[in-house]
């Protein structure tokens, strides 16, 4: 049966004039359109009608209901009479058995002035696919209705969050257990997205559901943030990965969205951390060659000969390599000061180890601090072997770093002492890489104060740097 549609009349000045104007338009238009007069006699016909149904210009002048072509139009005469009477557009569906197709005929009054119709335009559209989609949809909906209890149980226990929402405001009609954990402050069922939270401006949850609802296509979210306020009033951000799948009602229009999501918060945090580490590594790697160059140039300035230069350079490159260990191993965890000292002292022979006294508190260094202090200790050790306390068979080193409270500065001291004052007379202040590192570079890099003294008893070095507890660093 045909049914009335809202009125969209076509207005023209005179019938004859408009039929002539339309002829050329219809010849090439990609739509199947037939124009008939008040009695149903064909006046004009578009080229597409001939291509689809074999209705050529030979039909003009005949009543549309008498035309025998690929489309059964026998019932249309009555529709035209109705349209001419009430001036309301109408639609009728016509099915063809072989091949099975469904066409929609849309009849619109063809107006001459506001109150009089001089004819009717009939637009023919192939709606076979839409009809089939609706039919399948109906089958699904009936199946769902018949097995609702089973589906409800399966979804409720699913290891991922399932929320089924209806309407453009995403009113929840089903929430499984996991989905409820995303909205801990209320029962999501019955609420709109705005009411249950997660619909802040720019929120991924909103875009995710809106996108599926508006386009009628699945929307995918990857590590998208979901922000809500928990029972204690704290703002919580969790990340989800999932799909929002639109579903259609019996009228074929999108009725709502079903969202299935997995928690991706841990992956997101891990990936953020990795990106940070990779960016730091990239930065270090790019600068490493420049550092090597600077060390080479600076070492060359104080070297006595080629062998001396080579030996110092090799030692320093190894110290730089050790100072980057915390990055190379991919670990951003703090490095204990004691481990660092042991590692550097491990570079010298065991014979002198009983001449070293270590009294160091349990202090965890940041990455930058451990890098720089590795280089500092390396220079102190090398200097002690070449010119200081380990260049003689006697003399001791005391390394101290007392415990501090809160965020008070940390003071590390390296103190060489010979049994009799004057035995260290051979050692004097020498310009060079080591001096530069101990007195300029390390203090600047660690935001520290350093003092290097050549006392009668031996070399004495202190460096006071901010507590690692107060520093933000990897």
């Amino acid at each position, binding site marked *: 049966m045909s049914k009335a549609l809202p009125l969209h009349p076509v207005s023209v000045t005179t019938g004859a004039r408009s039929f002539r104007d339309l002829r050329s338009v219809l010849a090439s238009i990609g739509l199947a359109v037939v124009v008939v007069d008040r009695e149903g006699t064909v006046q004009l016909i578009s080229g597409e009608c001939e291509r689809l149904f074999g209705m050529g210009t030979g039909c003009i002048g005949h009543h549309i209901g008498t035309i025998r072509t690929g489309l059964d139009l026998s019932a249309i005469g009555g529709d035209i009479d109705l349209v001419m009477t009430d001036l309301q557009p109408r639609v009728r569906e016509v099915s063809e058995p072989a091949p099975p197709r469904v066409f929609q005929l849309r009849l619109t009054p063809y107006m001459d002035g506001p109150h009089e119709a001089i004819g009717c335009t009939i637009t023919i559209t192939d709606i076979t696919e839409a009809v089939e989609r609706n039919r399948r949809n109906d089958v699904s909906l009936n199946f769902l209705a018949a097995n609702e209890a089973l589906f409800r149980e399966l979804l409720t226990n699913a290891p991922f969050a399932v929320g089924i929402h209806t309407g453009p405001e995403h009113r929840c009609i089903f929430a499984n257990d996991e989905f409820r954990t995303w909205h801990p402050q209320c029962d999501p069922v019955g609420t709109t997205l705005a009411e249950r939270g997660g619909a802040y401006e720019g929120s991924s949850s909103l875009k995710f559901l809106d996108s599926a609802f508006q386009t009628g296509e699945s929307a995918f979210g990857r590590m998208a943030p979901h922000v809500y306020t928990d029972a204690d009033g704290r703002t919580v951000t969790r990340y989800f990965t999932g799909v929002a799948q639109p579903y259609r009602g019996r009228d074929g229009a999108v009725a709502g969205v079903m969202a299935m999501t997995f928690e991706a918060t841990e992956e997101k945090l891990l990936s953020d951390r990795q990106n940070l580490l990779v*960016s*730091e590594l990239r*930065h270090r*790697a*790019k*600068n490493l*060659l*420049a*550092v*090597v*160059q*600077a*060390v080479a*140039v*600076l070492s060359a300035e104080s070297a006595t000969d080629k062998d001396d230069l080579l030996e110092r350079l090799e030692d320093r490159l190894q110290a730089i390599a050790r100072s980057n260990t915390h990055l190379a191993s991919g670990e951003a965890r703090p490095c204990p000061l004691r481990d660092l000292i042991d590692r550097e002292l491990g570079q010298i022979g065991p014979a002198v180890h009983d001449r070293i006294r270590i009294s160091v508190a349990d202090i965890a260094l940041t990455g930058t601090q451990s890098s720089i202090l590795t280089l500092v200790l390396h220079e102190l050790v090398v200097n002690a072997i070449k010119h200081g306390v380990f260049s003689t068979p006697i003399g001791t080193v005391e390394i101290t770093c007392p415990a501090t409270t809160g965020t008070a500065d940390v003071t590390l001291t390296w103190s060489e002492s010979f049994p009799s004052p004057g035995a260290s007379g051979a050692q004097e202040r020498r310009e060079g890489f080591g001096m*530069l590192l101990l007195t*300029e*570079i390390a203090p*600047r*890099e660690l935001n520290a104060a350093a003092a290097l003294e050549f006392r009668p008893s031996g070399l004495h070095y202190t460096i006071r740097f901010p507590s690692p507890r107060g520093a933000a660093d990897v």
Partner: protein
Amino acid sequence: MSEAPAILIVEDEPLVANFLGRVVRSIGYAVAGVCSNSSEALRALDQPDLRIVAAILDYSLRDGQTSLPVARELRRRSLPFMFLTGDDTAIAEEFGRTGYPVPILVKPVPLALLRETLRRTVGDSPA
């Protein structure tokens, strides 16, 4: 020494900064300061007594920052500068389009080339 016109160094690697300082002094300029980030460098530019006439900028600094804010400020003040970087593509993309002539040297740069480029950037010798 403080009377000599000075060059600002923006470099977050202390060893490299020290090396650059030596090169700067070797061509007769003073080092106005070594800054490891942009905000320090911008503060230094606001101090007239530093007598900054040019700058050497390391492009990528720590924590994902760059020295581009300093470069823009130097350009606004029509002060010459050069980039020293581990990777010139990022600068070419971000700064090259502007048409402002800035030498870009890629680390590690040979000492002679660094001296020569620095001389050309600031002019032959300090006034």
